[in-house]
């Protein structure tokens, strides 16, 4: 039987505030366990949570970036459940009046535009971190509450995706939007950005949805895609055998690349949502929305389109440039100095990215500044150095942070365009290689390339190759 796969994603992003959502404890990652806690985030009796303005504004900004209708009146609700990572035995979240509803995000799938609707965007608090000891037979778990209470943005999509290509584009586009709006650092390895997928199958052409299965414990975008593939196959096999699909939550097993059923989940009404009496409602007026819109940067898709139109760059190149906001900013800073978009695009997407990957550099602290990059491109255009030498200079710039001009002078890398000097060298090479000259005269044309190579080697690559070629040809042909 042929099935259609129906996929929705729930995304959690930790917001980039300095302090937690309801108290002044730090949100810093990697500190000693349980040192960033206080009576509020430990759920002590009698404490009063007070909303972090920045967290609320980040959530509002995200909801606007995702084209949501902003609820004029929002408040917070208690979601009750018992789990050791939740100190209060309830999570402060939003249920009845989500901050943003009915939005959408445009994604690009293999060059074609596609729209995924956003069901809602809301703000809630993060839970603590459970550590399961590795020793065999351990009958306990350990809890670190440093993470408890960090502001968490939840973005729930409609089940509008049909294959993993769309899911991949959705995740990458969303990540970029959150980075461009600077509301989250989106570090998946630190858990700042997490995805949960819900998947159902239906017969091709059917318009009702099948029972959906939620998949949790997806630690990377790659595992999201693998888990969806696995789940779609598992459900298809069950349906082919005539077995119904249970509505359940499954946990992805990264090592064995399969999922297993999680113990039966409490139904939604068991969360006993009710309005959080310790927090006051928030009323969001038009003026506030306008003010947030004023701070909205150009979003990645718009920026990509502008780069393609204004600078005539390819879909692929612009895709690489806007992938990281910092790279696109770097690019724009460069062309403000020298108007050579294609050249900068090549340097950034090829050489700079290669150096960053090979040397494992932090893209946010690049050793090369736009001014230096622009200077290098100008030097190449003037013909002071060849493109081969330029790569050497660039590598040196990355290592030392020095200006290209300084490196060229220090290492005496300027191109030799002195005709007399090159000619003298050529005479020396010709007299030293009579056999090669003989070959050339017999018609072995690549002997010339060999001789050019010898001249270049003699000058450590600094001779102007075009000049060497012309002069050499002239000398031999006489």
């Amino acid at each position, binding site marked *: 039987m042929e099935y259609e796969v129906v996929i929705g994603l729930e995304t959690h992003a930790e917001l980039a*505030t*300095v*302090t937690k959502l309801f*108290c*002044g*404890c*730090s949100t810093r990652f990697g500190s*000693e*366990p*349980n*040192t*960033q*806690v*206080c*009576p509020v985030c*430990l759920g*002590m009796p009698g404490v009063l949570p*007070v*909303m*972090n*303005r*920045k*967290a*609320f504004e980040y959530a509002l900004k995200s909801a606007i970036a995702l084209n949501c209708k902003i609820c004029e009146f929002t*408040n917070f609700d208690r979601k*009750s459940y*018992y*789990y*050791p990572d939740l100190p209060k035995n309830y999570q402060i979240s939003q249920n009845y009046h989500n901050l943003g509803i009915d939005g959408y995000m445009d994604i690009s799938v293999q060059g074609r535009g596609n729209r995924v609707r956003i069901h809602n965007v809301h703000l809630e608090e993060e839970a603590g971190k*459970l*550590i*399961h000891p590795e020793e065999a037979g*351990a*009958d*306990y*778990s*350990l*809890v*670190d*509450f440093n993470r408890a209470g960090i502001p968490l943005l939840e973005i729930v999509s409609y089940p509008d995706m049909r294959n993993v290509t769309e899911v991949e584009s959705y995740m990458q586009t969303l990540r970029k939007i959150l980075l461009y709006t600077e509301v989250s650092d989106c570090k998946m390895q630190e858990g700042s950005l997490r995805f949960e997928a819900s998947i159902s199958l239906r017969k091709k052409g059917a318009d009702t949805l099948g029972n959906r299965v939620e998949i949790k414990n997806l630690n990377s975008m790659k595992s999201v895609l693998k888990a969806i593939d696995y789940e779609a196959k598992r459900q298809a096999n069950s349906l082919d055998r005539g077995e119904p699909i249970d509505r359940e939550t499954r*946990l992805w097993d990264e090592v064995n690349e399969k999922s297993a059923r*999680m*113990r039966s989940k*409490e139904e939604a009404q*068991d969360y*006993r949502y009710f*309005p959080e*009496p310790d927090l*006051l*409602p*928030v*009323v969001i007026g038009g003026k506030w929305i306008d003010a947030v819109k004023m701070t909205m940067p150009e979003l990645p898709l718009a920026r990509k389109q502008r780069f393609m139109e204004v600078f005539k760059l390819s879909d692929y190149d612009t895709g690489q440039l806007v992938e990281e906001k910092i790279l696109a900013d770097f690019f724009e800073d460069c062309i403000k100095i020298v108007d050579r978009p294609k050249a900068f695009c090549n340097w950034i997407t090829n050489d700079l990215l290669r150096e960053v990957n090979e040397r494992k550099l932090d893209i946010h602290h690049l050793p090369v500044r736009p001014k230096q990059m622009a200077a290098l491109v100008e030097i190449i255009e003037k013909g002071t150095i060849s493109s081969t030498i330029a790569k050497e200079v660039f590598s040196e710039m990355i290592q030392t942070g020095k200006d290209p001009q300084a490196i060229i002078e220090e290492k005496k890398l300027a191109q030799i365009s002195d005709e007399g000097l090159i000619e003298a060298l050529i005479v020396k090479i010709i007299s030293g290689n009579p056999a090669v000259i003989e070959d050339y005269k017999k018609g072995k044309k690549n002997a010339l390339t060999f001789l050019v190579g010898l001249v270049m080697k003699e000058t450590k690559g600094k001779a102007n190759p075009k000049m060497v070629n012309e002069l050499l040809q002239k000398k031999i042909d006489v």
Partner: protein
Amino acid sequence: MKIEQKDIEYIAYLSRIELSENEKETFIHQLSDILSYIETLNRLNTETVEPLSCAINTTNVFREDMLEPSTPLKDALLNAPASQSVFFKVPKVIE
């Protein structure tokens, strides 16, 4: 509204508390009484009244995103029924 044995057992399960048969009996009566008392409110017509979730007529109260001192580790662990080095210790969680 009458509370039944299974309702009490379900609420106890959700709250992770164990109740003896005697306690269940006590709570069935107490909860039923509370619910009947609340039900008298239903006699009031509230059709034109917006539901109220907060008794104070104030909105938009925020704090700025400024660091405040956290609780020292040893004090944070002081009330924990069990701890191990820098961690709270809980019965094994299985997923």
